[in-house]
């Protein structure tokens, strides 16, 4: 692949007497760029189509069809979807649960990852394995029991019913990432602090946590995306419309806007836009977090 970088550096002499590899690679590069370019367009199509739909009036859509550019840009669909669908409430619920769940979940996970990374104790390996296997549990299997448990606990008819189940399902991945991050902390730092009789809690919070800030950022963003997008648990546990999270609310808009496609499309964009923006701003952290989840050992 590095040879591709040689091409811009090629001097005019090189063009006049092209050596075989350069020519072969430049053809190869042209083919690559073409394939990737077409692929990108195909991949962006669904998003372009939904945006085009959201920006036009219903009449324009019906008259000219979806595979056209809007005759006139119409932003009214967004305000209609926002007020008509009470999306403001759904936004508030989702943001509320997110700003509590993400920090709390990461705190609990890093607290748990600390002894797994640094201490020797009975059952360490077994506990780590059990926590990680939690990655594979389909949420559907826990829904009915979760309803029973939350009923017994007396938590009902509030969006906070989601908090602890969300944390539970986020723990395996978060512990995996935090443990990997802690392992990059030099052992000598911990030894030195222990010599000074620092408590483990102090070492965890004041020495280890500041050193893994990039991992914490990656994890926070990934966890935020997961929480924003979560659907299954909310679907089962939340019944009252005023407690709907955004995905649940958007899902139920289907009935409300059944035939007003531009408003429906605007609602969908309102739901996905924060994730697109987050992605554009913090893509590096996101992909690093995903890659960290695939690390071995």
């Amino acid at each position, binding site marked *: 692949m590095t040879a591709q970088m040689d091409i811009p550096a090629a001097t005019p002499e090189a063009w006049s007497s092209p050596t075989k590899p350069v020519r072969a690679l430049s053809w*190869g590069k042209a083919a690559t760029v073409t*394939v*990737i370019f077409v*692929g*990108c367009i195909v*991949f962006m*199509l*669904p998003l372009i*189509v*939904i945006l085009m739909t959201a920006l036009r009036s219903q009449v324009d*859509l019906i008259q000219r069809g*979806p*595979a056209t550019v809007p005759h006139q840009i119409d932003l009214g669909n967004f305000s209609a979807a926002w007020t008509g669908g009470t999306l403001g409430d759904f936004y508030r619920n989702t943001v509320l649960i997110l700003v509590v769940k993400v920090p709390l979940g990461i705190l*609990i996970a890093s607290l*748990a990852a*600390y*002894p*797994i990374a*640094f*201490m020797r*104790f009975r059952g*360490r390996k077994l506990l780590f*394995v059990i926590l990680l296997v*939690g*990655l*594979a*549990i*389909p949420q*559907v*299997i*826990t829904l*009915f*029991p*979760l309803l*029973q*448990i939350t009923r017994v606990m007396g938590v009902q008819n509030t969006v906070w019913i989601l908090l602890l189940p969300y*944390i539970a399902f986020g*723990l395996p991945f978060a512990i995996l990432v935090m443990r990997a991050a802690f392992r990059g902390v030099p052992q000598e730092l911990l*030894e030195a602090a222990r*010599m000074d009789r620092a408590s*483990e809690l102090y070492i*965890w919070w004041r020495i280890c946590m500041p050193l893994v800030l990039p991992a914490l950022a990656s994890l926070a963003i990934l966890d935020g995306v997961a929480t924003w*997008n979560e*659907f*299954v648990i909310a679907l*089962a546990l939340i019944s009252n419309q005023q407690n709907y999270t955004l995905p*649940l609310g*958007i*899902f139920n808009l289907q009935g409300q806007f059944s035939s007003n496609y531009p408003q429906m499309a605007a609602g*969908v964009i309102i*739901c*996905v836009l924060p994730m697109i923006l987050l*992605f554009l701003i913090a*893509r590096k952290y996101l*992909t690093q977090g*995903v*890659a960290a*989840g*695939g690390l071995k*050992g």
Partner: protein
Amino acid sequence: MPEKLTTTTSSTVPPPPSLFGRIAFGYRERVVRNLVPYVFLAPAVVIFTTFLVVPMGMSFWYSLTDWPGIGPKHFVGLDNYKTVFTDSDTQLALKNTVIWTLVLITVPTLLGLGLATLLRGRERWKASAQAVFYLPAVLPLVGVALIWQWMYNPQFGFVNAFLEKVGLGSLAIDWLGTPSSAVPALMISAIWVSVGFPMVLYLSGLQTIPDELYEAARMDGARRWNLFRHVTLPGLRQMHIVIIALEVILALQAFAIIYALTAGGPGNSTQILGTWMYANLFSFNKVGYGSAVGWVLTAMGLAVAIPYVLWMTRAE
């Protein structure tokens, strides 16, 4: 003699590196020290147990009863599991789950590997293209489902409008409403979301292959395909295992996209075990039977996850 002296003096300074034995503690202090890891783990373990392990146990208990979700439970042993393997609707859901999983391993892995190979490097256009292919992965699945529902809309959908524009109007059908096309249509939308994940992992795997290996192979006259076969693929061996295991786990957990696009219909033609379990529990009031369906699904996930996690933590 001098050597002996040094050993004795050094033993008066801190003892060998053992995490707890560094300083001479009293018994009580040692007990407290030994409890520290468990205290750190307690919040995670309590939440994980209460909201994940206990519910699993409860649903396993349900699966051994004929519970309709309310009223008394009657123990029926393994009857529900026997029905799982005879009932034709469940058999279809099981078959769909297997096909779904196989397709959602093969296609995204191959596309992700191809894209990662082509997009390896730091040029700006490559970074932008990586972003394009990864973007769908961060969108809410409900949003994704509605986007594709709109694409497939029989009257105003882009897919049919496009077919008509290029003169293939005769091929236009109700993609999600026709049993034979609904499963492939769902798969396309799921593949759209799933390509980014293996691509990102493969890209991170490619970073671990030293450039010198490529240079050396090129010196020996290797061209694109040979470089790929003899340098890239072997260098990613470990990554293949990681990706395929995680893809199986994710594919088995699929729910939102199918539930929001077709809810298992038309008929039960797009039902997978996850949606079929949900339908039994929340639509048919068959909590006992639905839980058995769910446990078959969970067992499939565990069968992949347990060996994978053991392999992953083996290094210790």
